[in-house]
């Protein structure tokens, strides 16, 4: 039977074979592939594929399962975005970003004598969750199996328990104080979970069973909504029953760009797909493949591009229902040509002057060429935006089925354990921290009732000649776009296999980092040359979860799929055996 599995790169079999899927950090198969941040969740997805489900079915099951085995990173109280490409050529995205409650306003916060940062780790920090609604939309758009079938593996994991891994233990340890205060029942008799312990969540099993029996509607209109609202009333949160009932996910078109002959499909605003495409457009102006992955000039160009487009992101990405922004101009090749011209190949930009390099994408929205804009150059600078402290939480998974359907799905609670509010076995997000810390007339992320916060997540599918080539995504807060960009460059420009691309030391270009943050592992001369270019290099241990935990899949021309789970987060790939 195993003959169907062409290649198992890593010998370590992480999980049991109870589902008869093959699970490891790197797996190759032509029968379908799931790569996720946790081996149990990856295996759940592979089992669904083995049962005849498609990529969307598997994605729904993995989403539920991740909420059980990584309750700190996502779950029913979270939000996210998914991008789907189908074998028939159809493409769509599901926006299940969280939504600000009606009572959440700057005026209200001021009246209460607090602020966004003051409520970020309290029940007021929670926005209306989107994951269950996102799952419902996926069920209605391509799923072939029933909710009952797709939620059952998560119920089994919650009820029967699973072995705690090092990531679970370490994240729980880092958040012990928050948990002791807000969710002591989550702990092991008030103490920390340790790797090797068995974690059971009967309360979550019951909640998932409610959803199985009554449908996802009960999360927004029924018993679970009541439990959330009751919690919020008792603990001074903002979310009301009307907020829950008014939540809707959006079926959207993914944004599209090209990079060296590949088609890139990514999520639109309020998340970072347009930024990723803008970055790739800039990089296309440089012959990176002539340089190589350890060439300091390549790293310099990529890092400076990341910084420039992060500055732009802060002016061009927000909730499209609230702001009319020149997103197409931001993603245009002509705009990218001008942005590429900002990069000084001899010297790094002074971090204190990053904001002086904000671009002007609006003329490109009108279809102007870069030559025209160059002639009438009108460079404007904008004000400084306050820093948002983004943690390496969040969870991403990638799926490709044997038919050629693909799903890239990222879901999150914002910070690990979100607000810490623990309701019916799951945690509530703390996405309020992604709005501007206080009202600023010129800003585009001011908190407004009903608005969805801007975040950096970016589940991405890359096609070549109409066929899925790569499914990519990662957690990592402010490092997400850096890590995804580097993966794409490593795969496409440098021709690396997925395992090598994931294992490459990662670095960051981000507006608020005055230094060049980088995992150890680059040659000494590369680091010294970057310093000679004016970068202040700050080295991190390798591997470090700070730089994200990509779970990615590549599809070879032969149809062989290679999946790789994160080395920075105990991730895994899993494939059906038949």
């Amino acid at each position: 039977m195993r003959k169907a599995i062409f290649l198992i790169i890593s010998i370590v079999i992480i999980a049991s074979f109870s589902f008869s899927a093959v699970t490891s950090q790197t797996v190759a198969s032509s029968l379908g592939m799931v790569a996720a941040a946790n081996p149990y969740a990856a295996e759940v997805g592979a089992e669904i594929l083995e049962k005849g489900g498609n990529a969307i079915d598997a994605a729904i099951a993995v989403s539920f399962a991740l909420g059980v085995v990584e309750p700190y990173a996502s779950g029913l109280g979270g939000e996210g975005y998914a991008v789907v490409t189908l074998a028939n050529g159809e493409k769509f995205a599901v926006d299940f970003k969280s939504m600000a409650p009606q009572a959440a306003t700057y005026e209200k916060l001021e009246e209460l004598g607090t602020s966004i940062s003051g409520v970020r780790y309290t029940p007021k920090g929670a926005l209306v969750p989107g994951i269950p609604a996102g799952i419902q939309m996926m069920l209605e758009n391509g799923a072939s199996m029933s909710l009952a079938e797709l939620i059952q593996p998560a119920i089994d994991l919650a009820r029967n328990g699973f072995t705690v891994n090092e990531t679970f233990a370490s994240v729980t340890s880092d958040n012990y104080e928050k948990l002791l205060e807000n969710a002591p029942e989550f702990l092991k008799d008030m103490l920390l979970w340790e790797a090797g312990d068995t974690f059971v969540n009967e309360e979550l099993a019951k909640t998932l069973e409610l959803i199985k029996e009554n449908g996802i509607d009960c999360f927004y209109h029924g018993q679970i909504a009541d439990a959330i609202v009751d919690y919020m009333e008792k603990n001074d949160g903002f979310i009301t029953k009307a907020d829950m009932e008014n939540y809707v996910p959006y079926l959207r078109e993914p944004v599209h760009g090209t990079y060296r002959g590949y088609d890139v499909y990514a999520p639109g605003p309020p998340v970072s797909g347009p930024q990723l495409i803008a970055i790739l457009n800039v990089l296309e102006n440089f012959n990176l493949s002539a340089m190589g992955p350890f060439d300091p000039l390549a790293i310099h160009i990529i890092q400076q591009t990341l910084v420039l487009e992060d500055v732009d992101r802060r002016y061009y990405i927000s909730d499209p229902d609230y702001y009319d922004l020149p997103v197409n101009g931001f993603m245009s090749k002509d705009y990218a040509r001008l942005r590429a011209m900002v990069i000084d190949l001899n010297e790094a930009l002074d971090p204190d002057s990053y904001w002086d390099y904000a671009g002007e994408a609006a003329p490109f929205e009108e279809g102007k060429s870069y030559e025209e804009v160059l002639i009438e150059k009108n460079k404007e600078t904008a004000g400084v935006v306050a820093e948002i402290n983004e943690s390496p939480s969040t969870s991403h998974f990638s799926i490709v089925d044997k038919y050629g359907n693909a799903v890239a799905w990222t879901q999150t609670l914002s910070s690990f354990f979100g607000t810490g509010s623990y309701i019916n076995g799951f945690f509530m997000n703390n996405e309020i921290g992604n709005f501007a810390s206080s009202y600023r007339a010129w800003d585009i992320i001011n908190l407004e009732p009903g608005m969805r916060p801007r975040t950096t997540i970016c589940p991405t599918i890359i096609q070549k000649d109409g066929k899925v080539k790569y499914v990519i995504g990662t957690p990592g807060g402010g490092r997400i776009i850096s890590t995804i960009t580097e993966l794409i460059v490593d795969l496409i420009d440098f021709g690396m296999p997925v395992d090598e691309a994931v294992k490459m030391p990662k670095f960051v270009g981000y507006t608020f980092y005055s230094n060049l943050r980088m995992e150890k592992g680059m040659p000494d001369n590369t680091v010294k040359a970057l310093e000679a270019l004016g970068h202040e290099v700050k080295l991190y241990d390798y591997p470090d979860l700070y730089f994200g935990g990509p779970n990615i899949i590549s599809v070879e021309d032969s149809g062989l799929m290679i999946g790789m789970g994160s080395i920075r987060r105990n991730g895994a790939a899993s494939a059906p055996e038949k």
Partner: protein
Amino acid sequence: MKRILILLLITFFAALGFSNAVTEEATLTFEEPVLITSGGQSPGALQMMVLAKMSGIKYEFIKDVEAATDNVVPFNTLIIVVGASGKGLGAAGIDVDTEIERVVELCKIARGLEKKIIISQIEGATRRGESSDRIADAVVEYADYLLIKDDANEDGKFTTIAKEKEIPIRLFDNTSDVKDILKELFLE
């Protein structure tokens, strides 16, 4: 086969003997009230606080208590839970060197006031590392007692120190065991 069995039995009894040797000093007793603090700002100290509460001993928990005589005088025993956390140190706005200075000074004050000192490593192997070991090494010479999670001692670090410096040591398997050990040390 017989030989192997005999060898296994010898190993078992030798291990049992060693285990008794390192735990027999547990008959020592300490006096309340207890000041619990962290050495490295990891969550271990907070776990010790929870265990102290469960055990019913009189304690006060001040994670980053200032090394000042007035802060030590009200207590009869000082428990320092060692374990470095980059996140915890960052949140406290200090680096590992500053933390070492604080806990060493605290030990000196306690020793000067003739208070008893327990040094504990409660988070096991996952909280071993260069910074954690530096903190442990800096304070261990002041210890009247070592209370160490067994898997933090896989390399024999703490039992070796205990032997060299003649400090009684108690090894435990599970963090929850500390509750009963505290009862034993303070209440029996």
